[in-house]
């Protein structure tokens, strides 16, 4: 029973991403979208949290929301994070048994 954790708030505004990463179990995935995409950036104060769970929990970020914020360029995203489009978002929902929105 795997869960897709959906995070739509910046980790510099709310603790949704930290909560999601803390609750995610092995095999779960975390999707950063809307303002949540700021959590996927390299070299920030929360970037180490992504590295800490790498290998157990896959972290994804929604590409269109990165682009909308001017963050779509190469090299801005942490190495452990995978960029997906809306099709990838749908696949993440359908390949995990549950979704949890960390609103």
């Amino acid at each position, binding site marked *: 029973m795997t869960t897709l954790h*959906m995070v*739509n708030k910046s980790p510099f505004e709310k603790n949704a991403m930290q909560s999601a990463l803390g609750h995610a179990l092995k095999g779960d995935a975390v999707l950063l*979208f*809307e*303002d949540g995409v700021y959590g996927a950036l390299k070299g920030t104060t929360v970037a180490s949290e992504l590295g800490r769970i790498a290998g157990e929990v896959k972290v994804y970020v929604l590409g*269109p*929301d990165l682009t909308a914020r001017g963050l779509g360029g190469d090299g801005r995203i942490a190495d452990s994070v995978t960029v997906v*489009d*809306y*099709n990838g*978002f*749908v*696949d993440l*929902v*359908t390949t995990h048994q*549950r*979704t949890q*929105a960390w*609103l």
Partner: protein
Amino acid sequence: MLGHELARSSRVRPALRKCRSSRGSTKVKLSILVNEGPYTHQASDSAYQFTKAALEKGHEIFRVFFYHDGVNNGTRLTVPPQDDRNVQKNWSELAEKHKLDLVVCIAAAQRRGILDEGEAKRHNKGEGSANIAPGFRISGLGQLIEAGIEADRLVVFGD
């Protein structure tokens, strides 16, 4: 109020079985919950883009339920600037194209002035005051519960 809401929740869709698409990937039945109004942050846009992508991939959308400020997606009176997206119209057109069931919570709608013909008449709001957008219908919370039970996944978009 509860009795009234339940009375309006009598429309039940037959459950469809999961089936396989031609590409071999499993088709899934999804329900969507929208808790945020249009032009607020991004939830309405994300929910719309997600729903559209899911339909294009051949998945079934059992229902889209609009709750709290999300009911504001369902007014036909919005007139956004011409160079901006029209969130309400996008939903109506998607519903028309794919025969979607767009349901607005009645209690949330009444608080925010979203009325269909029946509600406008019941509350004596005068001729022509019904403002529910095409493709939307007003019903009770039972429809959200049913959406959660009938679908394989309930995907929540909000603030």
